[in-house]
C-alpha cells in the first residue's frame, strides 16, 4: 500500500441487487481508499459483474454508495460519470463504426462540455501509453483485434480522467502476453495515482498487482484482506489459484 492515503474514495454499504426474485447480491460492504488498487475475485456467477454494474448505476440496487464524499442510492449512470467514476465494461461497448480517435475523444465528452480544453494532453498521454492505438487512430474501432479493443476501452475510460477506474474482466479473451501487458499498465496507472477497482477471473495476476482484495461467493463477501495475505491463504490457493501443475494436469486429462 505504498501510495494510498487514508481517505475513503468509495464506500459501499449493504448493497443489494435482485434480478426479479433472484438475489444476485445480498448485502455487500466494500471500501476503497484513494490511490488503492482493489481487486474483487470469485468464481463464475458470484456477482462480480453485477457488483460493478450496481456501483455504476447500470443496474438498479438498494443500499448506499458513497463516492467522493457524496451519497447515492441506485444512481443514474450519467450522474456518477459526472462525479468522476469510470467503468470499462466486460463487453467493452466501443463505438465500433467510429474511428479510434473519435472513440477516445468521446471519452472526454464531459470534460469538453465543462469547458476543460486540456484533453488534448490526456490524448497524447494515452497514445504514448498505447502506441498501437496511435498507429490505428484513423481506423474504425470495429476492425481492431481483441487486445487493441481492450486497450481502446481502457484508453477511452481514462480520457475522462476518472478518480476511480473500474475494470470488468480486462483479461477476458486475451492472449497471455497481452494480458501481461495490460496488467503492467494497471501498475503504471496506479503509480500515476489513479485508483482502480479490478474484477478478475485471473486471480493470480489480480492478487499480484492489488493492494487489497475481496473474495465474492454467492453474492456475498466470503473473504477479504490485503492482497499479499490472501495470495498465501491456503483456502484461496485451494479454490482460486490452484497449484499450477495440478491445474495443468487436470486441464489435459
Amino acid at each position: 500500500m505504498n501510495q494510498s492515503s487514508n481517505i475513503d474514495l468509495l464506500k459501499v454499504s449493504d448493497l443489494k441487487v435482485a434480478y426479479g426474485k433472484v438475489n444476485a447480491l445480498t448485502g455487500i460492504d466494500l471500501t476503497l481508499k484513494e490511490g488503492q488498487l482493489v481487486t474483487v475475485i470469485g468464481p463464475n456467477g458470484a456477482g462480480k459483474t453485477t457488483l460493478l454494474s450496481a456501483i455504476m448505476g447500470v443496474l438498479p440496487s438498494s443500499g448506499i454508495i458513497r463516492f467522493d464524499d457524496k451519497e447515492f442510492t441506485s444512481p443514474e449512470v450519467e450522474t456518477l460519470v459526472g462525479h468522476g467514476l469510470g467503468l470499462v465494461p466486460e463487453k467493452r461497448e466501443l463505438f465500433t463504426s467510429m474511428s479510434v480517435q473519435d472513440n477516445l475523444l468521446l471519452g472526454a465528452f464531459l470534460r469538453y462540455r465543462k469547458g476543460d480544453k486540456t484533453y488534448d494532453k490526456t490524448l497524447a498521454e494515452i497514445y504514448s501509453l498505447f502506441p498501437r492505438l496511435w498507429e490505428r487512430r484513423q481506423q474504425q474501432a470495429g476492425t481492431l483485434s481483441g487486445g487493441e479493443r481492450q486497450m481502446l476501452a481502457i484508453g477511452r475510460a481514462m480520457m475522462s480522467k476518472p478518480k476511480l477506474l473500474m475494470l470488468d474482466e480486462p483479461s477476458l479473451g486475451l492472449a497471455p502476453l497481452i494480458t501481461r501487458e495490460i496488467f503492467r499498465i494497471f501498475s503504471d496507472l496506479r503509480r500515476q495515482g489513479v485508483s482502480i477497482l479490478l474484477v478478475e477471473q485471473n486471480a493470480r495476476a489480480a492478487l499480484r498487482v492489488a493492494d487489497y482484495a475481496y473474495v465474492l461467493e454467492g453474492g456475498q463477501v466470503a473473504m477479504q484482506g490485503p492482497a499479499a495475505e490472501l495470495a498465501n491463504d491456503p483456502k484461496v490457493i485451494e479454490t482460486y489459484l490452484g497449484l499450477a501443475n495440478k491445474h495443468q494436469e487436470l486441464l489435459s486429462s
Partner: protein
Amino acid sequence: MNFQIATLLGQDGLTNGAIYALLALSILLVFTVTRILLIPLGEFVTFGALTMAAIQMGKAPVLEWLLLLLTTIDCSLDIYQQARTRIDKTKLQKTALKLGYALLMVGLMHYLNLAETPMFFQAVLTLCLIVPLGPIMYRLFFQPLADAPALVLLIVSIATHVAMVGVGLLLFGPEGARTQPFSDSGFRLGNVMLKSQTLWIILVSIVLIVSLFIAFERTLYGKALRATAVNRMGARLQGISPVFAGKATFALAAFLGAASGILIAPITTLYYDSGFIISLKGFVGAIIGGLISYPIAAIGAVAVGMIEAFSMFWASNYKEIIVFTLIIPFLIWRSMNSQHVEDEE
C-alpha cells in the same frame, strides 16, 4: 420540350429536391441516433405550413392548445416520477419553465395581432410552436421504449403518424392553405424567369444542410449524438445521456420539418394529410444514402426532386410511381455491396 420548359422544370425539381434533401437528412439523423424511422416527419411539414397560413390569416392556429396539453402531460409525468424518488429543486424548476413556455405561447397566440406582424416574426412564432412538439413526442411515445427492437419503434412511429394526421384534421380542418411568398420580386437570368421563392428555398436549404454537416462531422457534440446511435451503453458510460440525445434530434427534426413546411407553403397548397407523401420522397433520398451517408442522401433527394419534375412533364399520371420505383434498383445495388462490421467481439 424546349430550353424554356426544361429550365422551368429544372427549377421546380431543384426546389422540391432541396426540400426532400432537408427531410432526408432529418430522417437519417433521427434514425442513426434513435433507430426510429420518423414517419410523422411529414406532419411537422404540414403543421408548419398550416400554422403559418393560420397566423397570416390573423387567427390563432389552435396548435398552441395541443402544445399546452402535451406539455401538461409531460410535466405531470415528470412530477409523478420525482414524487416516487425524491424531489429535486432544479428539476422542478425545469418543469415549471416548460409549463410557463407553453402558457406564454398560448398567450402570444391570443393577444398578438398575428396578421399584422412581419413575416419573419410569423415564421419564428410558427417554429416556436412546433419545435417543442418534437422532444415532447420523444418523451411521451418513444423514451419509455428506447431499448425496444427497431420494429416496435417503427410501429409506434406509424401509430404516431396516423394520430397526428387525425389531430391535423381536427386542428386545421379539411381545407388546404397557401401562404404569401417571402418576397414578391422575380429575377431574370438570361431569358429565364426565376421565382424568388425558389431562390429562398434553395438558399435556406443549403445553409441548413451545410450547418448540419459541420455540426455532425466536426463537433464533439455531433459525434456524441452519433455515438449514442452506435452504442447506447457505451455513450452513457461517457456521460452522454441517450434521453438528451433523443430529445435533441427530435427537436432538430421538428425544426427541419416545420422549416420545410414554411418554405414550400407559398408554392404548393398543403392539406392536413399532404405531409406523408412529401416525407416519403425524402425517405427515398435517405434510402439512396443507405440510411447512413448524409451527402449521398442529400444528392439522392435532389435527384428525386428532378426526376419528379421531369416525369410530371412526360408522364404526369405516373409521376409518383416513377419516383417510388426508384427505390428498387438502389436497394438491389445496396444489398449487393453492403459490408458488415462485426459488432460483437
